[in-house]
């Protein structure tokens, strides 16, 4: 049961990481800011700018 719980937790964390939601939480914590639409847009612009200068794998 605990293995299943751990696997579900990891899957959830993976989804959060892939969706950049974890990165956004870290961003808020690191800069000591609170969530707001403007903050998300600032974070998202920086994140996506860095992400899409690299080729995607074939």
């Amino acid at each position: 049961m605990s293995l299943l719980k751990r696997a579900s937790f990891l899957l959830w964390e993976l989804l959060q990481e892939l969706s950049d939601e974890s990165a956004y939480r870290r961003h808020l914590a690191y800069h000591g800011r609170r969530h707001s639409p403007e903050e998300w847009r600032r974070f998202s612009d920086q994140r996506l700018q860095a992400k899409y200068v690299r080729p995607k794998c074939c």
Partner: protein
Amino acid sequence: MRRLIGHLFWAAVSVGAAFFLAGIALERGEPVNSMWLVLAATCTYLVGYRFYAKFIAAKVMVLNNDRATPAERLRNGHDYEPTNKWILFGHHFAAIAGPGPLVGPTLAAQFGYLPGTLWLIIGAVLGGAVQDFVILFCSMRRDGKTLGQMAREEIGKTGGIAALLTVLFIMIILLAVVALVVVNALKGSPWGTFTIAATMPIAIFMGLYLRYWRPGKVLEVSLIGFALVVLSIFGGQRVAESPALAPWFTLGGMSLAVAVIIYGFFASALPVWLLLAPRDYLSTFVKLGVVLMLGVGILFVRPELQLPAFTRFTDGTGPIFAGKIFPFCFITIACGAISGFHSLISSGTTPKMIAKEWHAWPVGYGSMLLESFVGIMAMIAACVLQPGVYFAVNSPAGIVGTTPEAATATITSWGFPVTVGEMEQLARDVGEHTLFYRTGGAPSLALGMAHIFATGAGGRAIVGFWYHFAIMFEALFILTIIDAGTRVGRFMLQDLLGHLHKSLGRTSWMPGVIGASAVVVLAWGYFLIQGVRDPLGGINSLWPLFGIANQLLAAIALCVATTILIKMHRARYMWITCLPLAWLVVVTFTAGWQKIFSPEPRVGFLAQADHLESALRSGQIAAAKVAESQALIFNARLDAAVCGIFLFLVALILADSIRVWAGILRGTREAKVTEAPFVPSRLRPEEI
């Protein structure tokens, strides 16, 4: 006692690997169940992971958990962040898994299931996973430097520039070939075209939702997006059945190619949050979900393989692509066995997220094994089709004949019986007008996947839904690659043009953005249109070119890795990277040479051009086809030139690397290691 059980377990796995590999290699005359492939691959991966990869980690790279990784030392809450190894494993796998391991094995199945399967398993364990692992390690020890930066620093300026140019050229060919796969999958298919067209407004809706309505709710909007995409599959069925709407979405190859080119241009020039990013989020989740579904489906259904271990086409006369099993099987399957593109990912985001050095073992080596397993699943999906159906779907009209009757007669004469009636019934089942001449691998893969999914759930009644679900899944992330690839190509070009004129290099200067986007789109668009016009289906010339390019990039990565190992005073272990490097050099240079100089027109580009030219001179070509033939002649020579440039660039890097290795080994050159200095790790287990 625990130790003894461990020894017994690994002995059983090793014996199992040998037994199942021997089983698939020696079994003849009766159908082989797909579970043999699954078990052969799984046992071999486990042995490779536990023994070979651990040996590399412990003895060659000497991974050290007491050494702080860049994620810990340079932690910034953005890209440098210590991450749980299993989360990073999934993240890295999602980044390396693209259409390559799905399409390559599907095409290579023309040789039978055995050659491709063995290459996927052995190539990944001894080559692809080693490349990914070692490059990840090298980048991690250098604060996450890219392959280009490492090539410049470790080998020299020439190596660095050659690596950059190779990446740019490969991107152009990659984008053209994946776009061709989509075009061939959607050709004459209103259902598929509607579904894929619908993903664009869906992605824009997701972008707006995320930007303005519910900022930050990526998972939520991805779920909504997925529901809308599934609805669009049902909508596609209605469109295909509607006499009024179906003609709007029934497009030929050229119209679809032009549409994809226009799409690529706008997608690369539009703000990234509007179309590219939401589609990327969605395609990543769909990709992981479908891979999982396919794995479960194969385990649940355990289908029998219909294609034989070897077909008659090992002699090089295959209808899907020409060329003998050596070297073309190893070129056709690049991703899934060894892919140079992975070295760009292993030296990208991942090294900046590794919490402990030993995590590179599952992340670098392990995730490549999983990608190889995706290739095995694609091979199974292709081989569960009746061989006659497989060849009827994948063979171009230029080879099998321009009418269904001629095509089925040709394919049946090869010993793979198929009838027009069977093909028509199959097309009706999946809601298509026809399944003949659907080259590119995507439709046959979708048929195989639909067969597995429908056997597992829903039966024949919903095989059409599963077929179009599989097409949507393939097209969705191929279009994401086109968006992102065009954008990256634009950045690379602007970077180069910036040396000529400053404003051309500014990514915020609109004329520069539009101009560079147009150049990149026209470059891959040219090859795409060439593929659409090609009477042999385009895949015959473009896919090998892409395979050669991708594996030459792997050769560059292995040159860099070998140089670093020698500089680390690990020359006695350089065989670890030199073994796959030597194989790749032999395979790619043989394939490259044959693609340029083979006297067989279906194989050699120059022979193809000469053949067409002599036909033109002797008046064998109708007046209406003269301009088209002249274009084909030019394209064949262009392909030969592109192939020659690839080989030249890699020969240059190889020669430069050997010069550096010889200098260090002879003691005439300093073995200066450029890795970041040792800093003790203070990362607590609860932080990861």
